[in-house]
């Protein structure tokens, strides 16, 4: 699963620290997410999408199995 978190974060002028506080996770988790090294829970994916006013599909790109 890939995502556009870094792109959207920069577009919205958020730092990693600010975004992490908005969604209730550690800054390190945002780092892992931006590197596509961690697949978030549905709740975290929903919270991140909500911060950027996007749908989950717009932020996260699911790969077909």
């Amino acid at each position: 699963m890939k995502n556009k978190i870094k792109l959207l974060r920069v577009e919205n002028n958020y730092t990693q620290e600010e975004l992490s506080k908005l969604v209730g996770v550690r800054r390190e988790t945002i780092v892992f997410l931006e590197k596509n090294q961690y697949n978030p829970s549905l709740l975290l994916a929903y919270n991140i999408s909500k911060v950027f006013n996007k749908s989950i599909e717009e932020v996260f790109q699911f790969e077909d199995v």
Partner: protein
Amino acid sequence: MKSKSSFAVLTLLSLLFGVFVFFSFNGGVRTVEIVIISMIVLLGIGVTINTYAKEKKQKKGIIVEDELSEKIKTKSGSLSFHYSYFVWLIFIYLEVFGIELETWEIIGGGFFLNSMTFLIIKWYLNNKSYEE
């Protein structure tokens, strides 16, 4: 108990006290025991500093625990349990190669190496790479 850090300090002191009492009843302290005590002290200091740093971050409003940290903790535990088999295997091989160890040295060494394995894996997953 006021805070986690004071709990950590109290645990460390009780552990040290227990170790000294144990060794004083078993014929004094030898070099091996000094090494073990030093290791326990080092581990204890590490845990205390870590707990204190976490508490300081929490006071500043920084999130210290989340879903990823929980997953890392679980994965580190499972991996270190897996590798612990090899730790015990090393001790068996030491016996095979003629290095005689006392029971408490095997158990103590095993627990120490297992906890070190856990800490190293946790550090690696936290700082280098976490792949699902």
